[in-house]
């Protein structure tokens, strides 16, 4: 985990912020680290290839691009159907996140999907379609009523 070089750590901390909108966005970080831009670019490639960078590019606000309805749907999925529903959920463009989570006595839901749509109706259609095709009947839709916080994570290295 800590196999990163000092330069790689600096690059990763830099990239988790907002890179400058300039023709040469890495000129400054290169100068600070006393290397050339090409070295920075190569380190970014390495970090991406090794999985330290999951995604690289523009990060959009989904409510600004018309995806105003956001729903966390929680499901009770029996062990035997997990693979089936997960495979289907993975293929659906409207579903961004999909996890299996620990349950509690009061909260028996083990399968979680995040669904984004232009309207609530669209989200409901996606969920009903998934429920039908995966043959799972026990689920609850928890729409986002209010967004208190949504920011990019910053993992300091």
């Amino acid at each position, binding site marked *: 985990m800590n196999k990163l070089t000092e330069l790689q750590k600096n690059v990763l901390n830099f990239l988790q912020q907002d890179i400058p909108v300039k023709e040469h966005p890495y000129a400054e970080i290169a100068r600070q680290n006393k290397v050339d831009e090409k070295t920075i670019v190569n380190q970014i490639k390495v970090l991406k290839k090794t999985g330290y960078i999951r995604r690289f590019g523009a990060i959009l606000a989904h409510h600004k691009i018309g995806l105003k309805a956001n729903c966390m749907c929680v499901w009770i999925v029996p062990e035997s159907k997990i693979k089936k529903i997960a495979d289907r959920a993975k293929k659906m463009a409207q579903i961004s996140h999909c*996890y299996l989570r620990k349950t509690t006595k009061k909260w028996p839901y083990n399968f979680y999907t995040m669904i984004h749509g232009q309207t609530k109706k669209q989200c409901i259609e996606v969920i009903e379609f998934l429920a039908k095709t995966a043959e799972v009947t026990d689920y609850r839709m928890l729409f986002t009523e209010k967004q208190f916080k949504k920011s990019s994570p910053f993992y300091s*290295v």
Partner: protein
Amino acid sequence: MQSDFPIIANPYQVLAKRLGISPEQLLSKIDKLKQKKTIRRIGAVASAAHLGYKSMLIAARIKPEAVEKIAEFINSFENVTHNYLRKAEYNLWFTFSAKTNKQINSFIAQLKGMNGVEEVMALPATQTFKIKAEFKF
């Protein structure tokens, strides 16, 4: 720009060429989209797991009159990136990332001690099938 951002010293020149506009035009369009907050930022999403961070989904049952205040307290932690109000017996849902379970547990203990907080549950992921943050529109 969401999924195929060129990794090169002059990415905007390459993108402008792809779009058939000048680099100046592209930079000014991007500036506008950032001002409008359509583009939140341009950069990397690091892998929490690769860097030794655990991300915990936490759900809390908060008295309605205390929700705003508690949400504000939760938001004050850098570790919290998402925090939503949802219609359910657990009305506040958020994520807390930290390097150790100890940090997560001590945060939860602190939250439980606050006025208006009736119940807190941690829901660790046992398997991740999909994390995608690109949107088609």
